[in-house]
């Protein structure tokens, strides 16, 4: 990722002190070089380690999450979650005292909850996901007033063995962070984590190359009920009048095309992704004489999930949640290293 962009996208008060050896990666996988990529595991069974309980994960679906990569956390402990909640709460209160205007004219009493989601992980080596939630309670009626969830953020690591294997003991690997809610809260929470655990947050951009992988991968996934089109959105910003092109393909037809391209079930190669995209581009060119390959792919939307190049994701199917997280973890790890 370009460093200029990275600088603009990091949270304030970044102190990047890495306390361990350089995290090397054996070889690039996800789109970095022509290679095979194992498909995210088929819809998970309801029992067994590493399967996400649909009830706890239901709240993750259909929300827009902004993505960040996070370097390993120093001396983070699963046993101290309550303490962290308390400290973070104090930090937020302090920010409010400083006059940080979050909502105009409303005095909000903010409650912080930090919890662990033990089922949200990939391999046994992965750290369980950590969820941070900010709820507000209006001070008007203290006792039984409704608590409204105003911000959520969660750290996770799904099949991040490449990273966690190379990390010394005091470090916890949770390379992917997802936030939903006001940017100001993301900033406060992120800064607190950065200060407390000496880690570094960076916005995770998704390149057009990675987006095209997602398009190919998700097109091939079997989805029972919904008939959601495979939509690709291209942007041509540098014209005198900017142009956006939305290219949506009927999912059955897209899948039929992909099925004739993919050679080995469970595996995808860069070449296959290229052929898939080229087929779509040439069908478009045949009609409109426009070279989509010269434009920028900015968003991919399927029944499984939708991803935007600015690092925004929406999960739409719980059965493929882990699969998508695995992809995003991979991207986050690439960005860290």
């Amino acid at each position: 990722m370009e460093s200029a962009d990275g600088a603009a996208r990091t949270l304030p008060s970044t102190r990047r002190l890495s306390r361990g050896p350089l995290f090397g990666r054996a070889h690039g996988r996800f789109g970095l070089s022509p290679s095979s990529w194992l498909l995210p595991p088929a819809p998970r069974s309801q029992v067994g380690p590493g399967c996400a309980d649909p009830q706890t994960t239901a709240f993750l679906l259909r929300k827009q999450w902004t993505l960040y990569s996070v370097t390993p956390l120093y001396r983070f402990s699963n046993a101290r979650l309550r303490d962290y909640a308390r400290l973070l709460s104090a930090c937020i209160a302090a920010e409010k005292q400083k006059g940080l205007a979050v909502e105009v004219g409303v005095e909000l009493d903010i409650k912080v909850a930090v919890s662990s989601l033990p089922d949200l992980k990939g391999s046994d080596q992965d750290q369980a996901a950590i969820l941070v939630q900010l709820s507000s309670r209006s001070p008007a009626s203290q006792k039984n007033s409704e608590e409204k969830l105003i911000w959520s953020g969660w750290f996770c690591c799904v099949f991040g063995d490449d990273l966690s294997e190379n990390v010394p003991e005091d470090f916890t690997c949770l390379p992917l962070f997802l936030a939903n809610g006001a940017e100001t809260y993301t900033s406060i929470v992120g800064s607190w984590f950065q200060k407390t655990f000496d880690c570094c947050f960076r916005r995770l951009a998704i390149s057009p190359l990675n987006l095209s992988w997602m398009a190919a991968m998700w097109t091939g996934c079997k989805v029972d009920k919904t008939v959601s089109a495979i939509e690709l959105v291209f942007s041509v910003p540098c014209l005198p009048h900017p142009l956006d092109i939305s290219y949506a393909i009927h999912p059955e037809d897209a899948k039929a095309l992909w099925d004739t391209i993919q050679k080995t079930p469970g595996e995808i190669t860069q070449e296959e992704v290229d052929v898939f995209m080229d087929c779509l581009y040439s069908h478009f060119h045949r009609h409109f004489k426009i070279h989509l390959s010269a434009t920028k792919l900015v968003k991919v939307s399927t029944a499984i999930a939708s991803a935007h190049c600015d690092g925004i994701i929406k999960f739409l199917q719980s059965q493929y949640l882990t699969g998508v997280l695995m992809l995003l973890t991979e991207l986050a790890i690439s960005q860290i290293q």
Partner: protein
Amino acid sequence: MDETVTEYIRRTVLKIPREEIKAMLQKWGFLSEAQLETINFHQMKDNISQDVVKLCEENSADIKQAAVLDIIYNHIYPNKRVWSVYQMNKTGEETDFFDLRDFKKKFKRRLRSALQNVTVNFREYEDNAIWIRVAWGTPYTRPNQYKTSYVVYHSQTPYVFISVSVLKSNLPLLCEALLVASNYHDIREMELRSHSLNSLKDIVFKRYNQNFQTYRPRPLQERNVVPESADLRITQENRSEKERIQRVNREIFGDGPQPKLEFAQYKLETMFKSDPKMHVLDKKEPFRCLVKFHSPHLLESLKSLAAAGMADTPLSPLLTCIPEKARNYFKIREKKGFFPGSFVSP
């Protein structure tokens, strides 16, 4: 005075940009010059609108005047709404003499016979455009002044521009009233929609620049020609290609500015064809796609694609036919027969 009327006037004034408020109130003509002089138009809009409302109360404004103010606002800022174009048909050659009073009477009567609770107002403009504002109620509730449809009808033409806004279920009734009042037999929606009302008129009345074949004895010169005395090692490599692109664009799009459209939509039901070497999909059924183009100024944007290297020249007729065919929604199917590469749109 009716509270709903005062509130409606207040909100309408708030919509107007501050510098324009005085001029619009003058156009409205409901408040006298003397009254307008008493308003400080440099204060906050909130206060201006309060002052206007007070004066309106003095003059006992009713819903009719409030509606006229709304029409004036929409006439000056039509681009806040989305307009669809409809074409009316009549069999037979009779050119009826257009009687405006008759039109208005029949229109109102037809609407009211089906739905009592409507507010209907008219305003005529110089270019033969009749603006009709309809606020819709239900059999049990009074008309909601915030749920309005607008119709712009040029009486010398069969074209109607309609901005329906929220209550699409009232559209058939609106169309019926139009037919009855204008003495046409049927009405169909052209697949043409945009925010820019004037551009829609340009397209439909063919007021955009048509390209006329002109004789050009010499090849086009590039605008910024490098003086010959400059370094001879520097050449424009793609000069002839650039000139060709300019020339072909001129032939297709004409010289003048393009009508302003914001989107075009294509429903593709054509076959997927690929290089046989690739061994990919070879189905006998259509490859179903939906393509949408969005831009603040779509046609100009498409025109610039070739020069930017992103499109071939000439651009596809599917795109360049938009103003000529007066539509921006298309359904494209494979043409059966000799030339599988060509398309028809029904």
